[in-house]
């Protein structure tokens, strides 16, 4: 018997931003997979169309960009804000399941 938990339907701007930042952080690896697998669809290197050095530059550029974006995100994600919005937001974290 759980007491019905009352939660506001709409969040204040700051917690709202934090939620969206988490969403973005979750999507970042998906973006990474996309760019890392994309070359598999290119024509094979070395057949005159592409050069190996371009592949090297491509991978390391994407890699560096991912690291940079992750660094920006990490700052916002690890910041604790005092006004509540505690760590476990059951809305998107807890796979509530009656068992």
């Amino acid at each position, binding site marked *: 018997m759980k007491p019905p938990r009352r939660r506001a339907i709409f969040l204040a701007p700051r917690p709202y931003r934090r939620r969206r930042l988490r969403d973005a952080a979750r999507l970042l690896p998906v973006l990474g997979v996309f760019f890392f697998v994309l070359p598999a669809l290119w024509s094979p290197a070395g057949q005159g169309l592409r050069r190996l050095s371009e592949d090297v530059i491509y991978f390391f550029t994407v890699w560096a960009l991912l690291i940079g974006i992750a660094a920006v995100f990490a700052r916002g994600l690890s910041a604790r804000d005092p006004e509540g919005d505690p760590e476990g937001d*059951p809305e998107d974290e807890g796979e509530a399941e009656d068992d």
Partner: protein
Amino acid sequence: MPFNLLVLSCLVYVIGLFVVAFLVERQARAGRLRWLRSPLVYTLSLSIYCTAWTFYGAVGYAARSGLEFVTIYLGPTLVFVGWWWVLRKLVRIGRQLRITSIADLISSRFGKSNLLGVIVTVMAVVAVTPYVALQLQSVVLAFGVFAELAPGEDGPFATGQTAAWVAAGLALFTILFGTRNLDAREQHHGIVAAIAVEAVVKLVALVAVGIFVVWGLAGGIGPMLERIDASVLQGWQMQPGRWTALLALSAAAVLSLPRMFQVMVVENSDERQLARASWAFPAYLFTMSLFIVPIAVLGLERMPPGSNPDMFVLTLPLSQGQGALAMLAFLGGFSSATSMVIVEAIALATMVSNHIVIPGWLRLRRPGAMSEDFRSLVLNARRISVALVMALGYGYYRISGGSSALATIGLISFVGVAQFLPAMLGGMFWRGATRVGAVAGLVTGFAIWAWALFLPSFGAGSVLPPSVLTDGPFGIGWLRPMALFGTEGMDPLVHALFWSLFLNAAGFFLGSIVTFPGPVERLQGVAFVNVFDGPVGPQRWAQGAAEPEALLIMAQRILGDEAAQALFEEAARAQGKERSFLPDPTPDFLAGLEERLSGSIGAATAHAMIAQLVGRETVSVEDLMQVARESAQILEYSARLENQQAELSRTATALREANAKLTLLSVQKDTFLSQISHELRTPMTSIRAFSEILAEGDLPPETVARSGRIIRDEAVRLTRLLDDLLDLSVLESGKVQLSVGVVNLRDLIDRAILASEQVNPEKPFVILRDSQAEDVFLRTDGDRLTQVLINLLSNARKYCEALAPELRITARVRAGRVRIDVADNGKGIPKVAQTVVFEKFSRLPGEVRASGAGLGLAICREIVTNLGGTIDYLPGQGGAAFRIVLPLRIGTGSA
């Protein structure tokens, strides 16, 4: 470079690490390790992902397979960049539930099952053995490179002997620092510090070689890119299947390698460390990988054909006469190998001792008999385990012959540890995962890995006969190790990865959905999946059976005397025991103790040890049901109490109201008594006075007549008063005789209006009525009803003080009853008087000129009641208003 100098510098380097580890341990014990908890040190310690495989093998990998090597670092990058998905939860679970290893994680999740602990431990040891062998091989190769350049100094270079020496030396170092103490939570500060130093050394070394190659040999970035395009690597072709599989494989491995779990989860102390590492660790990998391709390209270009590309990092500087740089590179490679071996050995030793040695020992002993020093038993078990892991690695190196490329060996290990992934992720995110499912998945995956990848890796004929490889066991073609179920066209690695993980996940899922988890399993499932909701679960222990003293003795053996006593004392204080050191073995205390012990010896073992003392294996379903029943009873009981409480307060309210009414009535009665005595006394006084006058006689006849009239009037007043009282008592006693007949309500109202007009006849009343609605025939006592109406109308005439007085009479028939409202437009009856207005002797407060005795409305109520109806004061009508409700037909025979 003299070979002896090389050995010497290795020794100096190891001693340096020794000193670092030793100093940090000492600082840690003094409580000064703030810097050690910094995210930077955490990130550097994560770099044990980059082993000798990376340092030497990546260049070899690039020389053989082009850019494919980069997948091994892109996979972990994706996992860390997406830390919000998995890593954050994993680290939180590890911290909250004091997980000591990946075997502990899986066994703990699935009901603290020791069977699972054993399975995972065995799998981990087997899967990681090639990886340890890889490190030994790389060090031996590196020594070999230097030995070849300086032949004859120390006689022929014996590779087997070198490997043995390296293995023994690493085992010694690990035992000295990895198994010194039995920390809660298995954190090893000295080791972590040493590894952070090694991380810096290998990064600097590889970058130094890279810079030398790009700017020293190739002549800058531009020429370097041209050389890359001109090299044989240009012919490299990306194989999409293998590429994707390797990305997934390395991502899985970074999560499930025992040593990565050790540094990532067990040694973690703060979530912010993880936030920083989410980009800093990928950045480290990025830097490590940056110069791999240039070194490989230049190596292929400059080194003689047939030289081992795995050693380009060393041989390239050496061939250019850069002895110092080669020395640095050698130390970097040495660092990579040693740090990996040390941490892997610690992680595996923890697993072996916690899940195999101690449970086995517990099983052999009789319950309660713990005479030996338990701590030294655990530590010795770990020391032996470290030695065992090293011995296995050395054994694999000797059997496989040390001939394969480093990367190939590493990938075999990766596929092996990736088998943990379904049980691990399933356990973290799916509450429906069960122990049977986990066992089924792990065993299936492990078997397929061993059959399709591990055993063939020893080479045809060494473990598996060649006929099995070509024709399958007993000639069953679809079980051929390299072409399971007829999939011949697949790359061997992708083939093994695909089938093992697919069937592993399938077994895990099917096993989970067809079985039912035990109670502890379900509790642990909630604790894992909903870890962000904070600690959960009811108490796992029943109170009473355990002796606190026995618990303390056990805890001292595991945690050490001081720590255990402090823990017990604190618990005793928390229970309110001021002077005792022994707390009561409450369920709370037992759960806390178990948690603390599990930090040292693993969840399953801690559970089993407490179970031995408490005297019961686990909480049974019956216990849980009992708990549920008890709480249901308590709920019911409190609901009953609540009901009683509500009833009591209702009664109290009623009593309070009654009391207020009684008090008011008593006041009224007092007022009435003085009133009635006055009422009775005034006529009596007049009668007495005038009768005395008459008694004197000899009076003029007018005076006699006047006196007689006054006496008669006063007597009539007295009679009327007494009549009223009599009438009321008759009505109240219920003995009244009703003369029931059919009457018309309009006639009755007409009569009442006429009769009441003699009261204050000078007041011009406007009477509002609806003759149509009044045309109702009633079967009732018409005279009595008229009496009531007269009384109400007279009261209105008496008390209504409006300037333009009005009387409103409305009648309405509803559901077999007639409703008659009589309302005036005066000031009405004050609220306080409304409740007592129908009581006997009640008069409006402050009413002085009333002529009645306050019996009128009381009589009305009695009459209406006798007629089977009700009369009530009707508030809110803009004046005094009364409502009479009567049945259209009075019940026959009713009185």
